[in-house]
Each structure stands twice: as structure tokens, then as C-alpha cells.
């Protein structure tokens, strides 16, 4: 199998690349810093006999997307899975203080991510199908004080991914929306871990299984499905009072 990952340099993307490497996948690492990607490729080559290549791709620069898609499918190469873990993060306080940064985040996490998915959709369908696995967030499940703006980008993304799956699954394009809860990566390193915080390795194993099964929606760690079920049903007057 061949799996491409945008965001493989860090966090859950790094962990997933390792899990897939150990399964023997050929890997394509996408990211904005090619030198860093090469170092990650070296790590993965020790773990796997599969081929590991890198392609530059910046989520903030959608003009480059056509070339990325072309490089991915160059010479009629087949791609089984495209995974996108890359995203920006900012706390509500940080983003409220900096509207330009907020716009950049919303643009990259929502509009640009969707553009990349749209281009990948066409290419994957053209080769007869494949899997598109995109990391959204539990932050998109309910409007909450500490993650309003970031959550808005993820809410839009989850919505899009659900529709994509409904529309194209029959044609062979499997869409997986991953909604991580709190996972201990560099993204959340400055924050205090809540109960049920997960480890990137465990999430990666879960996501890898979902790639095999084509699970359309995945909460990771799984307990967050139930946590979010409760949070989605909390009345507004409660949401106004609590701080999470």
C-alpha cells in the first residue's frame, strides 16, 4: 500500500507514519520544510523496507496544490491513502488578540484543506478510488469558550468531510474524518492535559485500523465519543457557565 501524509513531521502524523511504515507501506511525506521531512524519512527508513519519498506542500500556499497532486500521481502511480493531519492551532485568547492570525488559521484549516481534498478527490476517483483521511477535531462538535475560532474551522471541515463521504463512497472514494480529543503532542504541550488525554501512538494505531476498515468517523481516543455525546447535549445555560 502507498500512503501519503501531510503533517508527517510531527505529532500524530509522525506516529501514524511510523505505524504504517511498520506495516510495510510505501510512504510519501508532505510538508513545508523539506529538510525536516528528509530527517523524518531517514527515521522511517530504519523502521521499514518500504520506499519513503518527500514532496514539499504548504497548507498556507494553495497555489502549490496542483503541483503536489501531480507529483503524487506522477507517471500513473497509484496512491491508496492520503492523510492530512496538518493544521494550525491557537487558543481562543491568542486568536481573539490577533485577527490576522485567526484569518490565517481559518483559511488554512478550512478553505485550503478543503481545496486540497477536492483536488485529491478528483485524482483518487480518476484512479478508481482510494481513501482520504483528514484530521478534524472534537472542537468542531460544539461551540465552546476556549476553542471558538479554531473549533469553527474544524466544524466546517467535519461537515464537509461527512458530505464528501455520503456522496462519493459508492464510487470508491472512502472519506475518514478523525476527531481527536486531547492528545499529547507539540500542539497541546502548553496546555494542561484534561482527563482522558491520549497518546499519539495509540491514536495512530486506531487511525491505521480505520484506514483498513474505511471507518467514516473516528473519535480518538475512543472515549471522546462518549465525552462529546454528553457535551453536545449540555444545555446552553450550562455551556455559558463552564470554562471548557
Amino acid at each position, binding site marked *: 500500500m502507498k500512503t501519503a501524509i501531510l503533517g508527517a*513531521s510531527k505529532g500524530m502524523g509522525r506516529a501514524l507514519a511510523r505505524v504504517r511504515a511498520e506495516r510495510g507501506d510505501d510512504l510519501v511525506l508532505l510538508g513545508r520544510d523539506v529538510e525536516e521531512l528528509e*530527517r523524518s524519512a531517514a527515521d522511517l527508513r*530504519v523502521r521499514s523496507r518500504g520506499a519513503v519519498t518527500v514532496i514539499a506542500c504548504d497548507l498556507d500556499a494553495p497555489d502549490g496544490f496542483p503541483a503536489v497532486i501531480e507529483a503524487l500521481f506522477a507517471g500513473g502511480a497509484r496512491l491508496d491513502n492520503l492523510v492530512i493531519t496538518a493544521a494550525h492551532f491557537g487558543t481562543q485568547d491568542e486568536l481573539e488578540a490577533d485577527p490576522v492570525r485567526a484569518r490565517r488559521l481559518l483559511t488554512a484549516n478550512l478553505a485550503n484543506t478543503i481545496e486540497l481534498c477536492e483536488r485529491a478527490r478528483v485524482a483518487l476517483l480518476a484512479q478508481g478510488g482510494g481513501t482520504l483521511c483528514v484530521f478534524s477535531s472534537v472542537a468542531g462538535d460544539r461551540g465552546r469558550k476556549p476553542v471558538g475560532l479554531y473549533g469553527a474551522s474544524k466544524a466546517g471541515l467535519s461537515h464537509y468531510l461527512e458530505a464528501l463521504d455520503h456522496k462519493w463512497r459508492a464510487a470508491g472514494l472512502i472519506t475518514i474524518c478523525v476527531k481527536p480529543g486531547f492528545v499529547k503532542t*507539540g500542539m497541546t*504541550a*502548553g496546555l494542561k492535559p484534561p482527563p482522558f488525554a491520549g497518546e499519539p501512538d495509540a491514536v495512530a494505531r486506531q487511525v491505521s485500523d480505520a484506514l483498513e476498515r474505511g471507518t467514516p468517523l473516528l473519535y480518538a481516543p475512543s472515549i471522546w465519543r462518549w465525552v462529546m455525546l454528553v457535551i453536545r447535549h449540555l444545555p446552553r445555560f450550562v455551556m455559558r457557565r463552564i470554562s471548557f
Partner: protein
Amino acid sequence: MPLPALRSISAWGLFALPGRERHSESLEAASATAELSRGLGRSYGDSSLPATPESELLCTTLADRILAFDDSSGLLTGEAGLALHEIHRLLMPRGWFAPVTPGTQFVTLGGMVASDIHGKNHHKAGCFGDHVTSLRMRLASGEVVNCGPDERAELFWATVGGMGLTGHILEVTFRMVRIPSPWIYQESRRVPDIESFIAGLKESGPDWPMTMGWIDCVSGGASLGRGILMRGRWAEPAEAPARFPAMPPRLTMPFFFPSWALNPLSVRAFNILYYWKHLAREKRGVVSPWGFFYPLDAIHLWNRMYGRRGFTQYQCVLPEEAGQGAARRFLELLVKLGGASFLCVIKDCGAEGRGLLSFPKPGISIALDLPLRDWTQRVVNELNAFVIAEGGRIYLTKDTLTLPEDFAKMEPRLAAFDAARRQFDPERRLRSHQSERLLEPAPKEMP
């Protein structure tokens, strides 16, 4: 980059201090403002803890990539946060093992270098630093440099065993060793007293690459220093099972034991049970490497057993010159002080480590856990007085309570280390709670 939040930081001994900890995949970028790097926090004392609440530390564990591995020479380059556990998981099935390992696999390469760790094979293989060929470091000046035994050797040997005080280790290159099989051939036997123990270690040394023992440190008198002596070597393929030894599942200590759970009676019972659990006087056979090297790793967070107040470890080496009787006198003192411990580990040390502050030197090393209670400082002071008189020294990576004047008396190499710090960090930007406690003010120049 925003400053990380103020929080409570602790290492394996659970002794906690307020500080700020940055986590990053990119050590080179994130080390710019940090006062100290730390790894998995498996040191027991305050060597990986912040000097002040304003101190910013860099936790390296996200920087865990293998950057190169040569399957013919065993040369491995890894980022400083790479854990030994992961190295073994990946490379043991291919016939490679670390040249030196501590009693836990949950340590980082950076921590192994900074403490210049030793293992059961110290008498044969020396310390970890002896197998390192090169380090990539960020110095306090901000400069990023390479060093090794043949390049900037002064910086290298000050960093090996230098407890993070000469710079941030970013990458480590060292040589793994080939193993004939992933299994261990082990012989263990009950030993009735300390004299036979030391004789057993010395007699096994030449033929056995790995030796160590566990001593019962609650029984005095004729049984003083009785225990279990273990020696091992890698099993040959012909005597070993063909399968790879499964890593045992890790059980987690789910909560802190209340402090009363640890009392003279429970410690006594544990020690007696442990001794008699080894029913046969002598056992031999092929065993799993996990149980042999890392018996304590089977229980995740076993340190919670000592309760919320935490614990420390006292580890010293009693030099050869002190003679055979020194270990007995040490244990007698320990029994008298009532410093009962669940685990007391004894090991013979080979040649002195080459790092400026490396712990080992030829003699006998004894390590024991001490819960942190009101009486612990007094016990440590008395043990230190004894160790000083015998010409021994303590292991910084385990220490929480040694007084600076005592440490100075044990460490004739302190002035040289201080000179290295002045050279590589003239403004003293790099510091830990331990360095502030033990190494300031700077020792006087030796005449």
C-alpha cells in the same frame, strides 16, 4: 514562542518544584531560551528540575527520531529524546542491543549521556559515554557544534556525565553491539552474607559480561548483606528459543500508596520474601532479557509506591582502596540508621568513567531507595560522612539531599568541571536545581 505555563515538575523520585517546561520536536529551535534540557525524568533527584520557578526547561521526548543506522557497524545517530525502549523494540529483532543499559529502558539518549550511565556490564564495557562517537550540541552561547572523543574532546568529556550543565545535547551517535540471540543465559544464587557476595561478584567478573546482585538490607548480624547474586551473558542461538521474547504487558500503579503503607514491617516482609522466593539455592537457565535487565519496568509508575511525598535513591561507590570491609561497615551503618529499603542493589564497578564527573570508579557500588521523610536528610548525611571517610562518592543522577560541603569532599574533580563550565558557559545560563544546590558557589581552584 509563548512561554509555557508554570507547573509542578518532578522526576522519578516525585520530589516536585515549580517551573516551566517546553516540549518540542525541534530541539535546535527550542533550546535557544532554555536553562536545561531534560528527558524522561528517570533521574531520581533534582538534576532535571528547574533552578527557580522562572526557569524554562526543554523536555526532549518529542525529538525522538533515528537519523541514521548502519546495519553493518551498528553506528546509530538519534535525536536526544529518543528512548532506549524504542531503540530496542526496533533493533533487537535485528540482532542489536545498546552497549550499556541502565535498569530501565525508559530513558533518553540525552539522559544516558548526561548521566554517563552504567549497567550490569560496567566491569567489562564501561559507561555509555565510552561508546559515544559524537554529539551535536547547542552551547549556552547559542552556537551549535559537534563534539566527540576526537573533536572538541574537552567539551565532550565535560558533557558526558555533566548533568546537562555544559549545553543542550541535540543528537547522539553511538555504537550498538551485536547479540547472538535476544535471550539471556542467567545463573542466580542465594548468597548468605556480604563477604560471599563481594567474592561472588569478583569471581564472576572475568567470565561473565553481566553481574549484579540484590541485597536484603534489613537483616543484620550474621545474615548482613545476604541476597541474590545474578550473572548473565547473551544466550547462544542453539540454547535460546527461536522466537523473540515478548515484552511483558506493563501494569500501571493506579494510585499513590498512602505513606503508612511503607513501614518497617512491610519493608522487612518484602526483603525476607524476596530472599526466600529464590527457593533453590542456585538457578540457571535461559531467561527473558526484559526481566533480566528491567525487572522494575513491568510496573509503570511503580514510584507511586512511596506515596506522594516521594523518595530518593542513595547510590555510592566504595572504592577498591577502602578494602573488603567497607561494604559490611556501610550496611551495618544502614541497618543502625534504620534506612530500610525495598531494593538494595549491589554491583562491582570497573575502570573510572572518563567523563569529568562520571560516577563509577573501581570498587563496589551500592544503591538503595529511601522514602523522603523527616529523617531522610539525617540518614543521607551520615551515609555521606561514611562514604567520604572511605574515599567514595555518590551518583548525581540519584541525589536529592547531599550537602554541597559533603559533595566537595567526595569530588576532587569538581574544580576541573567548574573550569569547563566557565569555559563553555561563562555566564552560567545553564543550571538545574541540583547545580544550584551542589555546585554553587564555585569550588576553590586546587593549588
